[in-house]
C-alpha cells in the first residue's frame, strides 16, 4: 500500500520535473511577456519596482521614528528596507500568481502546456523587481556605512528558500482562485495581515506571551530575519530555526506542486 503510493509519487514527480524542463523556454517567454506588459506604456517603466518599497520605507520611517519611536539596533530606515524588500517580493509574487490562471483563461482553455508556468512567471517577475529594488538597498548600505561581510555569500540560499516557500503558496493560491474566484480578495487581505505578523517593519521579538508563541509559527519571520542577519549584521542566521524553515519551504513547495499537478486537468472545465 505504502509502496504503491510511493511509486505513484515518484512517477508523478518525475513527470512533473521532466515537463517543466521541457517547457523551460516557455517559462522564460512568459516571464518576458509579463515584464514587458507590466512596464510598457508606463512613464517610469522599471522605476516603479524601486518606488514601492522606497515609498513604503519612507512612510514607515516617519511613523516609527517620529510618531511612535521604535528602538532597533540598526538605523530604522535600513532596518525597514531590508525587511520590505523581500516582503514585497513575497507579496507581489503571491498577488500576481493568484490571478495568473484566471487572467490567462483563454490560454488555459485552448492550448496545452504545464499551467505551473503562469504562477512561476509571476514569481520570476517579482524576482526581477527584487533585483532592481536592491540597488536602493546597496545605496542605503553605503550611506549607513554597513560593512559587507562574507556572510553575503549565504544570501542566495536565503533567496532560494524564500522562493520555494513562495512558489508552494503561489501554486495553491492560483489553483484555489481558479475554482473559487474570491480567493484573490481573501488572499490580498490575508497577506496584508501577514505582513504585520512578521518582523518586516518592526521587531516581532519585542512581543511576549501567547501571541509570541503563535507568531513563532510564521515561516516568513526566520526568513526575513535571515536577510537582516546576512546583510546587515554580518552573521549567519541561527542554524536550528533556519533549517526548520528550509524544510518547511521544501515541503510546502512539494505539496503545492503535487496538488496543483493533480488538479490541473480540471482547470479547463472549471475556469
Amino acid at each position: 500500500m505504502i509502496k504503491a503510493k510511493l511509486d505513484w509519487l515518484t512517477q508523478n514527480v518525475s513527470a512533473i520535473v521532466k515537463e517543466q524542463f521541457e517547457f523551460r523556454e516557455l517559462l522564460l517567454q512568459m516571464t518576458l511577456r509579463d515584464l514587458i506588459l507590466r512596464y510598457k506604456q508606463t512613464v517610469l517603466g522599471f522605476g516603479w519596482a524601486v518606488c514601492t518599497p522606497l515609498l513604503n520605507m519612507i512612510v514607515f520611517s516617519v511613523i516609527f521614528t517620529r510618531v511612535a519611536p521604535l528602538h532597533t539596533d540598526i538605523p530604522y530606515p535600513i532596518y525597514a528596507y531590508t525587511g520590505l524588500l523581500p516582503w514585497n517580493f513575497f507579496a507581489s509574487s503571491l498577488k500576481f500568481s493568484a490571478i495568473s490562471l484566471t487572467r490567462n483563461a483563454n490560454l488555459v482553455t485552448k492550448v496545452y502546456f504545464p499551467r505551473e508556468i503562469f504562477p512561476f512567471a509571476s514569481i520570476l517577475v517579482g524576482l526581477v523587481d527584487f533585483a532592481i529594488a536592491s540597488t536602493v538597498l546597496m545605496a542605503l548600505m553605503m550611506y549607513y556605512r554597513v560593512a559587507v561581510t562574507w556572510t553575503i555569500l549565504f544570501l542566495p540560499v536565503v533567496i532560494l528558500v524564500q522562493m520555494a516557500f513562495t512558489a508552494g503558496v503561489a501554486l495553491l493560491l492560483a489553483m484555489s482562485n481558479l475554482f473559487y474566484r474570491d480567493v484573490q480578495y481573501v488572499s490580498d487581505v490575508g497577506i496584508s495581515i501577514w505582513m504585520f505578523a512578521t518582523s518586516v517593519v518592526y521587531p516581532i521579538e519585542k512581543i511576549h506571551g501567547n501571541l509570541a508563541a503563535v507568531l513563532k509559527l510564521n515561516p516568513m519571520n526566520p526568513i526575513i530575519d535571515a536577510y537582516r542577519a546576512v546583510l546587515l549584521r554580518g552573521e549567519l542566521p541561527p542554524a536550528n530555526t533556519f533549517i526548520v524553515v528550509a524544510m518547511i519551504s521544501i515541503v510546502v513547495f512539494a505539496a503545492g506542486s503535487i496538488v496543483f499537478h493533480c488538479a490541473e486537468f480540471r482547470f479547463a472545465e472549471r475556469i
Partner: protein
Amino acid sequence: MFRRGERHDTLRDLLPSLGRRLLQRQKDKAHCREDFCALKDVSFEVRPGEALGIIGPNGAGKSTILKLLTRILKPTRGHCEVHGRVGALIELTAGFHPDLTGRENVYLQGAIMGMKRTEIDRKFSEIVDFSGVGGFIDTQVKRYSSGMNARLGFSMAAYLEPEVLVIDEILAVGDLAFQQKAFDRINEIGRREIPIVVVSHQLGRIASLCSHAILLQGGAIQRFGSPSECIATYVERQPSCVLSPSTVCSLLLRSIHANAQDPVISGEPVSFVVECSVSGDSRNDSEEITVRVRSMETGQILFAIGNYALGMELPRSGSFALTVELQMNVPPGLYLVETLIQDRMRGQLLVTGPQTSVQVSKGRIFRGTVQMNGQMQVLGRENYVTVHANRLN
C-alpha cells in the same frame, strides 16, 4: 462528462449552499446539476500517413475530441494517447497579446506551440513572408486587422513541423489567395506521412484532404469509413427545414437518390429520382420543385432547375416521383444535390428538402468550373493571314 447548470464560482456562494444542503438533506440535488456526456464510446486510431476527418452537426462533440487530443481535457473514462509533437491549428492567435508587437508575439506563440527559440529565429523571415504582414511586424498587434492576426497565427502554425497535426476549422482565414496558400501548405504537410485529424464543416475540403472520416452526432460515431461515405450519410440525414414557421406547403419532398453508378464520370449524364407527395386535397399552383447542384468545395451554386421553368405540370394529388437528368459537365469532386420548394410568384424559398451527394470522378481532363468542350487547333501560315484579314474588316 460535463456538468450542466450553475457551478459555484465563489466561496461566498459555496458556503451558503453547503449550509442549505446540510439543512435539506432530502432535497433532490439532481434538479440543479446534471451530468452531461459529451462523447460516448468514441474510439479511433490514426496512423502516420492517414488523415481522419471528423464531420457532424454543431454540438456533436467535435471540439471536445480536439480538446482531448490536445490534452486540454482528460477523458472521464477510457484513455487518449498522442505520440509526438502536436501541431494544433485550433486557436491560432490564442497566445497573442494585443500590447505586444508582432515579433514579440511570434516568439511567444512559438514558445507556446513548443518551438525552441533557435528554431523560431531560423524560420522567422519565412513566417513573416507567408503571412504577408510585412513591415508591420514591429507594430503592436492591437493595431492589426483581424485578418492580419489570423494570417500571422496561421503562418506560425504552418512552419511548426509537427509530428501530429490537429486542425479545427481554421481553413476559412484570409482572402481567397491566402486560403489557397494555406490549403496547399496543409496538403504539403499532409504528404509528410504524419497523422492528421481535421474537423471541418467544409465537406469538400475533408473529401480532398482525408483518407478516412467519422460522422459524429450527439457524441457518438454514426458512421466510420471513407470521406465520401460519411459525407453522403451526413448530407442525407439533414432534416428538411421550413424556412418560416407560418409556411404551409401543399407539396412534400420525401427523398432524393441518384440513379447511376457511383462514382459518376465527369461529362456523363446522371439521373436523380425525387419522391414527392401532395399533402391535403390539392396542390398549390405557385409552388415549384427545384433541384439545385452545389460544389462542396466552394459552396457555390452551380446549377438549378425547377419544374415550372421546364413547363412541366405536377400531379394534383397523391404521391409521385420526379426524375431529373443532369449532364455533369463539372470537374472531379464532391457535389451536393439539393431539393427545394419555391414560391415562383414571389421568388421565395419555402422549404429545403432532402439532399444527396454525388462523387464525380475524372472524365475528359479539364480544369475549372464548367466543361466547355474546348478544342484547339494550330493554323498554318496561309490560314493565319486570312483570319487576320477577316478581323480587320
